[in-house]
């Protein structure tokens, strides 16, 4: 990169900063401000939160989400493989099978570790 | 297999590594068999001494060069062949004998003094002997450094495990001080290896010294290691602590041999590897040496702890050695080498003597004694001889060494001034003052302390411990010729190379 190009990068960087900053600044000066309690609320519409928002959420949701996420992403990798299936050499087919087998192993593991079972809480449920 | 046989049958390897046999034997013994362990250690060190006498028998005093050289490639690292070079010449033969003699004596002195963990004590002691002998015989810088640094470990344990109340402080101070100097030397050694492509001292000498200002830096790096070990003023402050806290045998070896490793290092490496720098710095070294002589003597005087007194007197005596070495005259250097031996004998004996009374009274405070002459006549006589030898009375060994050193310093062209010898002579007088004061306080005067009245005189073991040293004091004092004959050709050879 020569000097001009560096300069170009600098200008680009500057523009990138100014562009999002400008509307905010303009809005600050031009926008009318007439605050009232409803406007200052967390949401301008909908219901007010009731009780403390620090409610313990069942940890199994996270576990489910994680397992789902993993398999979801891994399946994306299989898509190009499936599309190009009839052009692949034998080795790639084998590789794909291997990949599916590993996913399967992971699924079996998760299943056996009871990550896929839904448990009813033993604690009394939180009542608001 | 034949390679191993060839290795161990070489006399220099045998004398260096024979203590390892004792170490292995002691390791296999149960720790409760303390007497047996003591005998094994003593026997091992005595056999080592006999082997070193054999080395003396094979040694040709007329030959100025290195003898009994054992030179094999050890291993190769990225273009460097590190050699295993051992050899002996007139500069080191006496120190070798001193080491192998003092070790059994020191072990004998621990017979009743060391009651705790005898097994470990003897193992560390024999390991220490391997390191010390190796330092005096190794002629490859890499090998030398391994032995040099290795001596730190057993000595650290000896001070730290069997020492006095402040032993841990003294042990770590000893280790850190000495290491501080030697790591600078390590860098200098690596530099030399990069420059010459070898660590073997004979090969390096054959290629000639490094030219230019680098030589002066290298000299200083080596000098840092050795000056701390000697110890030269103002780097001496570890010594009183180490001496006071170390067990008797440790002090004997520390004063007798370990300090000599420093002066020997100057003699063997600094003078021949960096001759220009050595001559350039000689007056400065001599100045520090003279300061050490006077300072050590003055500080000795008011000490109440006998061990501390002897420790500071070592600073003074080693100052003489340094002055003799850097006079660059035959008398000076020969006197210095002899003075190294003398100091080993006299100060070693002094520490033994202190240890004997400490074992009886568990104090070393000068004021706790007085009039011991009456209850311990044998002890008093032997102590008198030792004290006189240490202060340099004519007819005993100390005189021969110091006299030669003073003569050498007077006639030195490198130093170029009489003042060094003049001030050093002051040290001789001061030595008489503090030694005789100490003797008077302990042995003369009224026997007025109740605890001292029933003290036992020396037993046969203690007399045997001291006797070889007393004999040597008279021998060197009255007939030093054979000792000079051993070193003379080598010293001439060295001076020729350095002064040319």
């Amino acid at each position, binding site marked *: 990169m020569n000097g001009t190009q560096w300069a170009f990068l600098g200008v680009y960087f500057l523009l990138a900063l100014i562009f999002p900053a400008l509307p905010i600044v303009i809005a600050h000066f031009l926008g009318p401000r007439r605050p009232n309690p409803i406007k200052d609320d967390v949401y301008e519409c909908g219901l007010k939160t009731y009780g403390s928002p620090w409610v313990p959420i069942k940890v199994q949701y996270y576990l489910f989400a994680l397992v789902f996420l993993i398999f979801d992403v891994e399946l994306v990798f299989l898509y190009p493989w499936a599309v190009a299936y009839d052009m692949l050499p034998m080795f790639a087919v084998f590789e794909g099978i291997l990949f599916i087998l590993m996913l399967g*192993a992971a699924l079996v*593991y998760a299943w*056996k570790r009871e990550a896929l079972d839904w448990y009813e809480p033993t604690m009394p449920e939180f009542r608001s | 297999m034949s390679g191993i046989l060839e290795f161990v049958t070489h006399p220099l390897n045998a004398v260096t590594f024979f203590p390892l046999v004792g170490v292995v034997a002691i390791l296999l013994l149960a720790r409760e068999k303390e007497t047996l362990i003591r005998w094994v250690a003593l026997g091992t060190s005595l056999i080592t001494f006999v082997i070193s006498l054999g080395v003396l028998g094979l040694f040709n005093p007329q030959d100025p060069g290195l003898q009994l050289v054992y030179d094999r490639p050890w291993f190769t690292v990225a273009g460097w062949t590190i050699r295993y070079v051992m050899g002996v010449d007139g500069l080191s033969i006496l120190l070798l004998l001193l080491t192998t003699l003092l070790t059994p004596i020191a072990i004998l002195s621990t017979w009743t003094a060391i009651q705790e963990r005898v097994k470990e004590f003897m193992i560390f002691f024999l390991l220490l002997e391997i390191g010390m002998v190796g330092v005096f015989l190794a002629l490859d810088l890499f090998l030398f450094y391994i032995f040099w640094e290795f001596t730190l470990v057993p000595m650290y344990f000896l001070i730290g495990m069997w020492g006095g109340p402040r*032993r841990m402080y003294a042990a770590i101070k000893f280790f850190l001080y000495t*290491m501080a100097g030697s790591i600078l030397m390590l*860098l200098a050694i*690596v530099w030399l290896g990069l420059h010459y492509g070898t660590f073997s001292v004979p090969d390096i000498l054959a290629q000639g010294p490094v030219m230019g200002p680098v030589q002066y830096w290298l000299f200083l790096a080596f000098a840092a290691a050795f000056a701390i070990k000697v110890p030269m003023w103002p780097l001496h402050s570890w010594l009183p602590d180490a001496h006071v806290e170390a067990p008797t045998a440790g002090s004997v070896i520390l004063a007798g041999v370990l300090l000599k490793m420093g002066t020997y290092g100057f003699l063997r490496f600094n003078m021949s590897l960096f001759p220009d720098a050595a001559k350039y710095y000689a007056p400065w070294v001599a100045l520090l040496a003279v300061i050490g002589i006077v300072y050590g003597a003055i500080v000795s005087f008011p000490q109440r702890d006998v061990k501390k007194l002897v420790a500071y007197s070592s600073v003074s005596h080693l100052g003489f050695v340094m002055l003799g070495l850097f006079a660059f005259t035959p008398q000076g250097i020969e006197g210095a080498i002899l003075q190294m031996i003398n100091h080993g004998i006299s100060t070693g004996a002094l520490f033994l003597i202190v240890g004997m009374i400490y074992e009886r009274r568990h104090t070393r405070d000068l004021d706790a004694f007085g009039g011991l002459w009456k209850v311990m006549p044998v002890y008093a006589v032997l102590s008198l001889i030792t004290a006189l030898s240490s202060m340099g009375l004519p007819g005993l060994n100390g005189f021969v060494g110091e006299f030669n050193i003073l003569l050498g310093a007077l006639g030195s062209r490198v130093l170029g001034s009489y003042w060094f010898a003049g001030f050093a002579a002051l040290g001789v007088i001061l030595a008489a003052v503090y030694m005789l004061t100490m003797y008077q306080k302990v042995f003369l005067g009224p026997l007025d302390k109740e605890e001292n009245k029933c003290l036992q005189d020396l037993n046969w073991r203690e007399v045997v411990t001291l006797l070889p040293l007393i004999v040597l004091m008279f021998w060197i004092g009255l007939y030093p010729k054979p000792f000079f004959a051993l070193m003379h050709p080598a010293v001439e050879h060295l001076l020729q190379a350095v002064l040319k």
Partner: protein
Amino acid sequence: MTVPVTWQDVAALLPEFFLVVWASALLLLDVFWIREKRTTAWLSALGFVVALVLAVGQMGRAPLLAFRGMVIADAFSVFLVALFALSGLVGILLAQDYLARNGIERGEFYVLLMFSVVGMMLMARVADLVMIFLALELFSLPLYVMTGFARPRADSEEAALKYFLLGAFASGFMAFGIALVYGATSTTSLPHMVDVIQAGEADLALLTAGAALVLTGLGFKIATVPFHMWTPDVYHGAPSPVSGFMAATAKMAGFAALLRLFVLVFPVVADLTPVLWALAALSMVLGNVAAIAQRNIKRLLAYSSIAHAGYMLSAAVAFADPHLGPQAVAAILFYLVAYVLATFGAWGVVILLERRIGQEGLLLEDYAGLSRQYPGLAAAMAVFMLSFIGVPPTLGFFGKFYLFRVVLDAGFVGLALIGVLTSLVSAYYYLRVVMLMYMKPGEPIVRREPRVQATVLAAAALTLFLGLTAASSLYAWATEAILRFG
């Protein structure tokens, strides 16, 4: 389709393939059939033995680029792969009893350890920028989990979270650096990159920036100052076997990639030499000085590991010198062996003395009097400490000797001076451990766990005797482990 992938490619990665299959199978076996967790431990140890044999079998082969230039099996990688397999084995030996006695033994631990080792092996094999990132993540993610394995102990979880967050942050730097390097050379393949750089077609400014960011990412993994903040907390909070395993192997893996990148690909960015110089000097100084103040042995070892990263990095400063590069690699590999041996040994002793997980038996004072009741163990620990200081005749001395040789040869006298002076500082705190064991009375309580004890004693024996007997062959081996691309 360019080059077809064949069985030859699989052969190039045989130890890794074997370990992945073995670990996956073990994962299922563990949940379905294995009752005793100890069986899982033994089976995974067996897996490492086989991997070690496979790695040794790869020795002496010609360098081979595999999987379309993604990985390479050269002497350097084979050396490290063998070392990683051995480390994995040691890791299991150290961990099994500890996990069992603290009630946190789960089969997944061993499987995670195996996956982590595979990632480290791949770090040694990388021939493509993308591969570096994948390998880095593969070895880091299991380590995050293993760090938190003492759940629900708060300090273990805290350590895991801290390690994970900072690790993810470092990965970000790494990814950005890789992107910049790609931008500068328009290739991710390292062999191509060498060609592009030699042809003068690379954008040097961009490449330097990229290399600096990659260095940041790797510097985090090898724990150099100033990317070291996590180290004491993580080593302290993690279960001790995990800390020991991490201290030894994660550093090796980081250096594997660092050496390959800097010695082989980036010599052209000699502008970074002062940066490496500063990192090495800071690590040596800060690591050693901070270690003095530690009273907890785990934190002490953590700071000491930072300092040792600095020593190794000081030889890597010579990376830009085409003549010294290979020597720096050999010296660092040699030092790594010395460091890994002493590290595993020292952590083994920590494990034996740790009474309750993360609580008792971890202070330096708990080592008082060890030499009286357990002379062998104390002697072994003393050997490790002396090796860390670099006292002859231990292996650590030879390691430092070769390192300083490279540093001096490259003309960095100042750095060598910092190195030796900080060694002196380090002697102070290492000797304090020795002092407590040998010179203070005390009643230490030590576990009788034969596997850990055997590991400790073996490491001590190797540290003590390898230097005198086999330093040359080890070094020759390390010298032959030169990095190459075809």
